């Protein structure tokens, strides 16, 4: 091991008791962070009695019964299959729409010389400090007038608007570093601005655009406030809303907790899978966001 590597430094500095204390904190901290999630997943496999009486015991068998009940809603009256689909549609539609709108705008702001460019940038920065609660009341009535309440399209438009400023600001910074020579060559060949953007700029920026998708996917999947306000029809709920409003049709089901945990797992498992697949990109994307 070379002198000066972090490992070497660590062994020298973290000597004796400080070192053991740091390890103890890290290990117990990591357990505290992960155990509740393990607990959640474990409880999808246990009956209510087991969950209550032996909370720490591992499940004795593997079963998909809980998932099946909340997914189909046959016995529970809560159709998490439907809610999952609603959430999925909103996430995918929002990402497509938001990335399209944001990339176009960000590219124009990075390359174009037009009156209002700087003002637009300033305005976008200001919008980041506006809490969504300050928009909610008029938006509720406005979406009602447009017939976009209880509509996945309506929710998609709202999420697109909420996510666009941040995405535009980050994409603008990216496009400003983009080599202009490539575009100039294409312009000389007679390509229009839009042509250059679609044929040259977008394909090269794939990685960056995917990064933007990863930053945004998480909050859209988890968003509760506007879903709660705009989606009051039972079959129009998204996953977070359905979990927050979880209330099984009493009398018809004897298990309540197992089903609740199954519902929560339906919202969590896709996130965990995504996390383990794109760990590096997620960490990078979130860091880039905070550095701005």
């Amino acid at each position: 091991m070379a002198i000066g590597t972090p490992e070497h430094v660590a062994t020298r500095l973290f000597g004796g008791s400080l070192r053991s204390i740091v390890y103890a904190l890290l290990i117990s901290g990591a357990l505290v962070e992960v155990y509740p999630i393990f607990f959640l997943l474990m409880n999808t496999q246990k009956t209510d009695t087991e969950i209550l009486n032996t909370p720490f015991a591992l499940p004795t068998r593997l079963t998909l019964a809980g998932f099946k009940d909340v997914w189909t809603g046959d016995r529970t009256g809560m159709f998490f299959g439907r809610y999952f689909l609603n959430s999925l549609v909103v996430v995918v539609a929002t990402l497509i729409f938001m990335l399209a709108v944001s990339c176009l705008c960000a590219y124009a702001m990075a390359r174009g010389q037009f009156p209002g460019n700087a003002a637009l940038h300033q305005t976008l920065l200001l919008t980041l400090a506006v809490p969504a609660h300050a928009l909610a009341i008029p938006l509720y009535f406005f979406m009602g007038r447009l017939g976009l309440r209880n509509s996945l399209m309506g929710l998609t438009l709202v999420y697109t608007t909420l996510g666009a400023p941040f995405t535009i600001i980050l994409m603008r910074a990216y496009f400003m570093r983009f080599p202009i020579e490539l575009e100039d060559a294409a312009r000389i060949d007679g390509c229009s601005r839009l042509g250059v953007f679609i044929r040259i700029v977008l394909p090269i920026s794939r990685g960056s655009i995917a990064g933007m998708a990863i930053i945004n996917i998480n909050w859209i999947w988890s968003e509760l406030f506007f879903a709660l306000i705009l989606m009051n029809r039972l079959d129009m709920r998204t996953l977070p809303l359905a979990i927050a409003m979880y209330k099984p049709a009493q009398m018809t089901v004897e298990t309540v907790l197992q089903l609740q945990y199954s519902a929560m797992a339906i919202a969590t498992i896709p996130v965990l899978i995504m996390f383990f697949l794109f760990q590096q990109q997620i960490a990078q994307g979130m860091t880039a966001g905070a550095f701005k």
Partner: protein
Amino acid sequence: MARADPTEPRVGGGEGRAASARTWQTKLRDALPWYLFIAPAVILLAALFAYPLFDTLRLAFYKWGGLGRQEFVGLQNFRRLFADEIFWLALRNSFIFAIVVPFGTVSLGLFLAVAISRRLKGWQVYRIAFFIPVMISGVVVATLWANMYEYNSGLFNTVLRGIGVGGLAQNWLGDRKIALWSIMLVPVWQHMGFPMIVLLAAIEGIPQDLHDAATVDGVSEPQRVWYLILPLIRPVFASITMLQIIGAMKVFDLVLVMTKGGPAFSTEVLGYYVFETAFRSGHFGYGSAIAVVMFVVVFVIAYTYVKCVRIEKIEY
């Protein structure tokens, strides 16, 4: 010299005016495609962001039950607000939230980032373990913790009774002296991995020779962190603290799922009070007034930050 249109009256500056009109036209022609590029985003933001924001400001001066006529009442909503005990409780709780939670997440995050940057054994595992909760839906986390806090059969009280200190078992969310603290523990648990990952990136961005220079004999680890690392990562540190403060000011999901502002309004926060007033009680004018106050508070915090702690680049 380019000659102006012969019909142009030959008065002083006429030629200049024509030229400037032409450049203005060329400018517009050059700018037009760009305006088409930004149009979708601008239209969307105007309709679903700017318009609702200004309408909230307007509605704050009206009395409105959602249907029927909006009655202009001047400053009455704000007068009522300042006499409203629940509003002051909500404001106070939001401030407590915005101080305690970021303090917890950022200081723990810094500790973790320093430890992980030292490549202690198993650092990859810690990095993943602390980051996993960040990814999970706020609603799921809130529901999970509400179940763990439950008085009779929740995980916490079961453990306390199990190890023979049942006397310490609490009604975590039902006791108005501790409910707010019980709620605040949850975002600290969930989000400490976020400052961790960001600060870690900042620490690893410091050139190695500076690390080496600081690793001289006799400098303890806390001294190294305080005098070397912190000054060098100050912009990122300030930025992540700010994000955490603004996020904590806007807390909503946790309160809705765990306590609905109770017991006795001890966990009422601004975000939830806006929702309750407008969408549960139907006072849309009054709700807008609360939203305006919330907007001003968040905006002032963010603005002060931008002005005072400017994110300047650190030169190594």
